[in-house]
């Protein structure tokens, strides 16, 4: 046991905060992630993270709280997606890609200005790849509240959203406001992206949203059970990643510890790979 949990893990305040925050964020990301996949929205999820990056970089430059910047950026991206709407498919893809390119360019500028104009070091690492150990203690209760709020909203709209995701027409016939639900869901996704970004950094945040959810969905054919499973997998991956990262400091005294976010993503990918393999084995046996 001593080699699994290096000394001080459970008495280290940043580590405990990290375990708590990551659990809360993993839970909301998993719930939202299930529906991102159901609606085949992986691409727009990726688009949101690019604009969230710009928001986070901008916040770092201006001195705002990172969470505000990330969520604000993601919401702006969501608004843009809604406005661009259903144009000619290829033009829309090109236009979206270039808008994201411009957003990335802006990120480059903000990060550069922050690095040259202030004393903060490692801003690129922080914004893009996150560092959960250094999230300010003031942010944590806010993040937890937001997460609970989003999970609550998702619980309320889960059933109508499921039908609307499968067939907006049938949903409309039932009296379900498909389009408005879509917008609400986009807002939930944006907040999740923001929360995930302060946990794992904006570039890796996608992994927390779709990874555990995709893993659970490969294994279960019941959406409610799949949602619970993806929450468990998400929390498990985050905690495993945190423990690994914390322990890595003790492995080779000479080198630095592995970044937490990378460890978490590695575990997420490993879980996904395992579930894919399991699914393929199962279908061959049937």
């Amino acid at each position, binding site marked *: 046991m001593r080699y699994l949990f290096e000394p001080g893990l459970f008495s280290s305040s940043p580590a405990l905060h990290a375990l708590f925050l990551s659990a809360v964020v993993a839970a909301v990301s998993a719930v939202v992630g299930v529906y991102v996949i*159901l609606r*085949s929205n992986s691409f727009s999820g990726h688009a949101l993270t690019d604009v969230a990056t710009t928001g986070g970089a901008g916040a770092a430059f201006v001195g705002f709280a990172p969470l505000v910047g990330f969520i604000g950026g993601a919401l702006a991206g969501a608004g843009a997606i809604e406005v661009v709407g259903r144009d000619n498919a290829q033009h829309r893809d090109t236009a979206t890609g270039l808008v994201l390119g411009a957003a990335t360019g802006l990120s480059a500028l903000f990060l550069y200005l922050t690095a040259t104009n202030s004393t903060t070091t490692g801003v690129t690492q922080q914004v893009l790849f996150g560092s959960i150990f250094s999230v300010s203690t003031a942010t944590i209760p806010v993040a937890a509240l937001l997460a609970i709020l989003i999970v609550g909203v998702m*619980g*309320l*709209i*889960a*059933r*109508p959203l*499921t*039908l609307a995701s*499968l*067939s907006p*027409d*049938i*949903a*409309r*016939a*039932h*009296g*379900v406001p498909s389009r408005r639900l879509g917008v609400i869901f986009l807002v939930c996704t944006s907040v999740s992206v923001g929360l995930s970004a302060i946990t794992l950094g904006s570039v890796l945040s996608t992994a927390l949203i779709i990874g555990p959810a995709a893993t659970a*969905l*490969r294994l*279960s*054919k*019941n*959406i409610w059970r*799949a949602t619970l499973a993806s929450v468990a997998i998400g929390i498990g991956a985050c905690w495993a990643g945190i423990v690994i990262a914390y322990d890595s400091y003790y492995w080779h005294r000479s080198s630095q510890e592995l970044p937490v976010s990378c460890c978490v993503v590695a575990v997420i990918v490993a879980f996904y790979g395992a579930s894919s393999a399991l699914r393929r084995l199962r279908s061959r046996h049937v």
Partner: protein
Amino acid sequence: MSTLDVRNVALRFGDRQILDDVSFSIGAGEFTGLIGSNGVGKTTLLRAILGLQSIDAGTIVVNGETERSHRIGYVPQKISIDPETPLRARDFVALGINANRFGLRRYTSDEKARITQYLEAVGAASFADTRIGELSGGELQRILIAHALISAPSLLLLDEPLANLDPRSVQEIVALLHSVSKQFGIAVLLSAHEMNALLPVMDRIAYLTAGRCASGTTEEVVQSDVLSRLYGHHVDVLRLHGRVLVVAEPSDDVDHLPSHATLNLDE
């Protein structure tokens, strides 16, 4: 008051007049067939009734209101589903009960019994626990029907539900829809390009071609003079062993040939 009242509806896409002065109405418990060849505008009309498509002229009144506040049962021609979607057929039918209610209230045992009952009624008991993404076209059709019926609508719209089914399934589904319609007083509007399967159960027919519509009972509408006027050129209606054949004279103008002219010969 009729359940569905379509009056003088007109709709134009670009320079094509899809619907031109279409009128018909359906009362509670009436089974109406919307008959017309492929591409004539049946789906467009159904979508207009649902409120998914705006119309250029005319009115559509459902249950006495122009706003679609009452739930309408809708079975689209097909829906695309990812094979990995984590919903069983049973779960999808269950959504028909409470999809428009917020929250996560669990299903009561009564509701669960109803779900099983409807699954059996459409002949879906054997694949109730399969993922909906893995169902065949015909199986999915049955699930969509069960889903639409379980919400106890006053109006049920079905867009070409019989197209993918083998003849025996067609008979089963038609009989089921008819009995449900009578038993629960549901107004049913079912679109098809071939009317013979529906002849035993249709109370009324709305015959659509080139944007124009003739409606009434089958005796009234499916007559040579009525259909000839509708098509704009002479067609003959032949009745043979309880089946109907609509035949056009050989003409150079191929566009106006009704599609059933060739289909019926294979039955």
